């Protein structure tokens, strides 16, 4: 059955595999038999990975993101988590939508399943 899946990236990106491998999982479940609807949310320390200035190549992100977008996945970032870490909306990469803390919480409640990495 096709599901609404929210994939939460919760950790600071560099030095661990969670952001790239979470993105790999996101596009993997978007591309599987059921073609789930997948949204990736950068939350908690994961918001650092949503910044334009991070070296996506060094983080092994570009291929997974291209595949995710090709499967109609979308990417959002939690403004409440950004504010707590002094990350400004202007710093966020253009392919990631800044959404309010309430909107992110709405997405968690509305999803059929959530995964976190």
């Amino acid at each position, binding site marked *: 059955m096709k599901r609404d899946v929210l994939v939460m990236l919760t950790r600071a990106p560099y030095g661990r595999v969670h952001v790239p491998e979470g993105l790999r999982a996101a596009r993997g479940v978007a*591309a599987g038999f059921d073609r*789930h609807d997948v949204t990736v949310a950068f939350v908690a320390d994961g918001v650092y990975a949503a910044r334009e200035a991070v070296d996506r190549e060094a983080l092994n992100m570009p291929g997974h993101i291209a595949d995710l977008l090709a499967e109609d996945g979308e990417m959002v970032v939690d403004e409440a988590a950004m504010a707590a870490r002094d990350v400004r909306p202007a710093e966020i990469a253009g392919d990631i939508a800044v959404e309010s803390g309430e909107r992110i919480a709405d997405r968690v409640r509305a999803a059929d399943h*959530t995964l976190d990495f």
Partner: protein
Amino acid sequence: MAHLGFLLTGGPFDSERWRTAYEMGRAALDAGHEVTYFHYLDGALVPVAGQEFPDCSDTGLYDEMPVEKFRELVADGAEVICCGLCVSARGIDAETDYPEGVEIGLLPDLADMLGTADRVISL
């Protein structure tokens, strides 16, 4: 009967998540539910055979080693799938390092679990 899916990304020594996954799966099997595990990232280290720890308490986290706990779950009907890419990254030889019944899968297996399970618990 419900179908419970667990995504386990924690390793055997860095968090309690493997143990929570075991305890919840154990209770679910006992209640007659169907249980599937997808082990991803360091979760692939959890069911590695040959783990030995000499002096752990009977009441503690390692009354038995993680691999023994998951061997028991497999024997009682749980499906345990480890992500093949994560297995290779960690230098695990699935043939010799995993107990019988632990399967190797890929992300489409996680996608299937998301499609069929009534509940998915990410640990």
